[in-house]
């Protein structure tokens, strides 16, 4: 394979198919066609985005609220820059704090006084909050997957088991995170009573709520994938007299991996959506809490800051989805070739 073909494959694998025409263009492959593709895949979305920004700008300027005018795209962009600057400042302060502590520690050592390490306790910046949200959503997602995949496999393997749990699935599936959260919070504060907690209660409540809401797509898709394993493959297992365990691990799971990953991808999407609501109520220091705090704040920047958060949530959600698509490609095989 040529380098170019390899680069193209890498891009396609990473879910960056959009950029493939650029590579082809730069390597001089049928320029006219590539330009046409680029105009179609980039030009039209760019136009649409421009139209959207203009409309937003125009409409925003004409709406007055109790806390001032609705910010347009420019104001929101400024606010985003502010948040980045704040983050830098906070990091700077933190670094300075630790430098001071180092000096103090040396002094204490010289005077023979005991020293206890102290942690910097500045307020979390916007980026800390994004990071907390990501940690929470992945914690919830992992809990959900650990439950949903095995249960889904059992459902797919045994129609009896599926019939037994199906009503529960159907009833619990549509429950909103806002309904789960209070229950989870009460349970967590009742059950999670360690002296020296490894995680914050709010973190656990949010993660468990995310798990409860996001496990269903994985469960249902796994069950579907396992139940739909090609009869030919199962006949191979029967002819070879594979044990139950080997049939499941060698044939059933690999063959249903593509659907399992479809489920995981949907689950992560749902989890990310649910997370914001869960964080708002549980006061888990992530993006949801940020939005809530800004709302409570009611300053002139409130709306712009929340809009930055909305954009951030959207972009991260998009990136998470892309990531899952790449993973999905990694595990999918050519089903046409039996």
């Amino acid at each position, binding site marked *: 394979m040529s380098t170019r073909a390899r680069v193209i494959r890498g891009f396609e694998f990473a879910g960056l198919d959009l950029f493939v025409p650029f590579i082809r263009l730069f390597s001089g492959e049928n320029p006219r066609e590539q330009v046409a593709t680029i105009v179609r895949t980039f030009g039209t979305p760019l136009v649409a985005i421009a139209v959207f920004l203009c409309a937003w700008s125009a409409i925003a300027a004409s709406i007055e609220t109790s806390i001032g005018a609705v910010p347009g795209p420019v104001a929101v962009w400024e606010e985003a820059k502010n948040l980045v600057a704040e983050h830098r400042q906070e990091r700077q302060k933190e670094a300075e704090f630790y430098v001071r502590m180092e000096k103090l520690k040396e002094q204490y050592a010289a005077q023979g006084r005991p020293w206890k390490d102290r942690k910097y306790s500045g307020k979390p910046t916007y980026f800390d909050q994004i990071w907390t949200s990501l940690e929470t959503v992945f914690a919830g997602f992992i809990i959900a997957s650990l439950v949903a995949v095995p249960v889904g496999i059992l459902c797919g393997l045994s129609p009896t088991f599926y019939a037994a749990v199906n009503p529960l699935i159907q009833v619990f599936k549509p429950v909103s995170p806002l309904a789960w959260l209070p229950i989870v919070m009460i349970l967590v504060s009742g059950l999670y009573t360690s002296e020296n907690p490894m995680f914050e209660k709010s973190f656990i409540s949010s993660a468990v709520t995310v798990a409860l809401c996001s496990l269903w797509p994985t469960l249902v898709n796994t069950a579907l994938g396992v139940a739909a394993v090609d009869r030919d*493959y199962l006949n*191979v297992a029967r*002819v070879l007299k594979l044990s139950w365990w080997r049939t499941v691990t060698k044939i059933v799971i*690999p063959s249903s991996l593509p659907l399992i990953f479809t489920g995981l991808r949907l689950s992560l999407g749902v989890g990310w959506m649910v997370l914001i609501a869960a964080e708002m109520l549980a006061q888990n220091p992530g993006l949801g809490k940020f939005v809530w705090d800004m709302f409570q704040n009611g300053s002139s920047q409130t709306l712009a800051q929340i809009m930055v958060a909305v954009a951030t949530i959207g972009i991260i959600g998009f990136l998470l989805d892309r990531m899952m698509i790449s993973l999905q490609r990694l595990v999918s*095989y050519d089903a046409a*070739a*039996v």
Partner: protein
Amino acid sequence: MAGFLELYGLSKEYMTRSGPQVAVEDFNLDIRKGEFVCLIGHSGCGKSTVLSMVAGLNSISSGGIVIDGKEIDGPGPDRGMVFQSPSLLPWLTARDNVMLAVDQVYPHASPEERSQIVEYYLSVVGLADSMEKRPGELSGGMRQRVGIARAFSLAPKVLLLDEPFGMLDSLTRLELHDVLLGLWQRDRRTALMVTHDVDEALFLSDRVVMMTSGPRARVGDILEVDFARPRKRADVLGHPDYYTLRERLIGFLADEDRERLAS
């Protein structure tokens, strides 16, 4: 004389909405050890049903199947099966597909011994250079070669082949006849193959069993084919008896056709 593979009074009844439907009735066949037998008949006559009952993949309504003195009970690796679609696992390489079978029948062999077995069979079917390829990267003929290697690697008592070349073009089919016979010639495993290709049946088998058209399919007639082995296609085609035998086969199938249309 009791055969090595014995099918006695074999019947298959399916339950359908309009009541029970008898697909195969009182099917009797004795196959000697080391014999290559083809089952031929019109499509839908129940020949694949018979084969999958021998494989243990399909339940038996009445009668029974005895292999080497033992009544069969469900499927097992003593019967190597080549399916119509190669039924390879698309996420495994050719090597791993065969290895899955080898692992199962040689649980006590060392990993080196097992991979030697796998490599041996894959190279005999002509895939020495494609062992690390997945089914998606192989042509239809190559996939079926892997299927054949997998079945032989089990060192089964009986080989079962369910129209293994039905999905291939005729040139590939001729190639694979030679691959199959080449492998079979080495240790002459008892083989039962289903086909609807008259020339294929004549070239490969020692006996051709003609089945009547279903429902209630049974053995209609049996044709002895005693061309010398190992066989070469040119010799078989040039044999003075070839066209007489072919005539009989086609005649039988044509009669069956007429009866089916009449009824």
